[in-house]
């Protein structure tokens, strides 16, 4: 799961179908979908959002959603 990786690790998204429809739509808008490679940039404290980077752009998502994204380590 995306929310379980360490800072600096790279992974490839394999399934985003479990997350909320709205969040998925917005992720699609930002070019994040199955097959996208992302890198974990940082975790905000106290269970706050995480920042991931993909193709040079950074995106912030909440951890609740991040743990619903299935990934494989690269």
């Amino acid at each position, binding site marked *: 799961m995306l929310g379980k990786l360490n800072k600096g690790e790279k992974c490839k998204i394999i399934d985003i179908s479990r997350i909320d429809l709205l*969040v998925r739509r917005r992720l699609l*808008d930002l070019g994040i979908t199955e097959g996208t490679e992302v890198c974990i940039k*940082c975790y905000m*404290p106290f269970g*706050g*959002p995480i920042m991931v980077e993909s193709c040079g752009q*950074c995106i912030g998502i909440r951890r609740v959603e991040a743990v619903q994204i299935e990934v494989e380590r690269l």
Partner: protein
Amino acid sequence: MDIALIGNPNTGKTSLFNNLTGSYEYVGNWSGVTVEKKVGQFKNKKDKLIDLPGIYSLTPLSKDEGVVTQFLLSENVDKMINILDASQLERNLHLTIQLLEYGKPVVIGLNMMDVALKRGFQIEPNQLSNQIGIPLKPVIARTGKGCDMLAEAVTSERLPEPNARIVDYGKDIEEAILRFEKLFDNKPNQSTRWLALQMFEGNQYVIKYLENYIESEQLNQFLLEIKDAIKKSAGTSIDQFIFRKRKETINQIMTDAYIKREQIITPLSEKIDAIVTNKILGLPIFFLLMYLMFMLTFDWLGFPLSDLLDGFITGPLSQTIENLLQAAGASAFIHSLILDGIVAGVGGVLVFVPQIFILFFFISLLEDSGYMARVALVMDRLMEAVGLNGKAFIPMMIGFGCNVPGIMAARTIETPKERLLTILLTPLMSCSARLPVYALFVGAFFVQQKAFIVLSLYILGIAVALILAKLFSSTILKGETSFFVIELPPYRLPQFQALWRSTWDKGKGFVKKAGTFIFAGSVFIWLLSYIGPGGMDVALDDSYLAAIGGFIAPLFEPIGFNTWQAGASLITGFLAKEAIISTMNIIYFVPDEASLQGLLSDYFTPLAGYSFMVFILLYIPCLATVATIYKETGSKKWTAFSMVYALIAAYLLALIIYQGGKLLGFM
């Protein structure tokens, strides 16, 4: 010709707009600076350019994005300029495809080639143009390079018909589109192919629009059939299917037109991010920046400048006016009207122009540099705890400048509940018009701890907003899931010119207001103080103003300021917060800021002064803000609520502070 400017957020759209039209619009570097449709004129003086909010797709999630879809459905557009961020080309092309499907001629402005090159993408503009089949011009929107070529291309050339069938969606969908066309008795203005595809994607605006043409039952039936067919044949939902088909086409375009190099340099942006969004340092850095901003505005820089200006207005300027009046042989009435009414009222407000411009400068800097989106990220955890999301913090920060644009910026918040909550709470952010009141009172009572006292008021505003957010979201605005996905644009070195323009744009409203609203208000208040039941030129205590102020003054006894002067200035404060200062200047009848401060200590104790400031901070959104709340919520009920809850909160808090303070032995 009406030409629409459309593109993703953070692609430099507003900069391009400014360069193409020569006029100035507000430029910012976070999603959603353009919250309303803006129209400018091309330099050829014939064609009009319409700036629209940044969108990722024509199927909207937030109200902000809905503006564009609604525009394409209801208004006439002849051509479109699609601005693309070259460094995020793949993502940006999804929108381009939808624009091509709309069927009107499109010209592409390809921005940020330099950023793309640094990331290791090499793009051949001509190749790309050939692949997409429409004209494409490289531009640098920030500096304006290439903009003339783009303007020429879009205004003068005969543009090729766009290839609306650039994506082949496969047999199921293509046949459904043909069947869909037959459902119409009379055809709408828009391309039916575009309408069909948007409907398949679940675009609620389009579905609603189509119900004007087709019975909703028939429409639903049709939609269900095609959704089922795709589910069966492809095993996915139709919107994902469409997305995938578009992506395939884009990948093809990319391979045919554009070479990707492997080596990538870590951009400076990521190095900065490693610090400012650091797990431990993120929040302290944010607070430190806020602290610096306040010290510069109120203490180190703004205060001495305001003092100088005050000296000028009350000294040489007043003297000159007085001499002129004397030379012209003005009557005592005119003399008093101009000096005691207008100069005192308007001058008292203008004195704070330096401080307000410094504040606006910093807000512009935060927006333009890209830090604002990081603030949203850093603050999300806290905001989530009170039932909001990090994005709600951006309208609030803008609200520090002025509540009106702050409330409008709430349109970028996707969920209606969080948006409403943000609209209701943004007026609690201490806007720049409240600043003169604080400056006056801290100057009178808290000279030693100026910046600290003012900062405490700003923080109090935020704290009350957060507490009320928690209260409202767990009572009257319960339910609905929260939502937070945010794009963090790369940092950009703000350009001085853009910063200055942005500061001026925000600040000029304040100056303009002083020249019009406050001017008229000052004359009116002076008149009320000049005449009374007993006739003209009465003693101040016998004036109409004293009668009106005195009528409500007893209500403020428990919170420390039972004087008709306070009552009267609170009433005018509803019109505009800085009118409080004008009113006080006029009724206390003093030549300058310093003597007003001296006089205030006769009417207020320091504790009552603080209580008064807290009351001013919260008590009611000003008239312009109330109008904006009504416009944005479209609800009389919520507009009334925004005024009533603020009044209650202000009174309660001032009561606690004043009575509590007295118990603790403060004066």
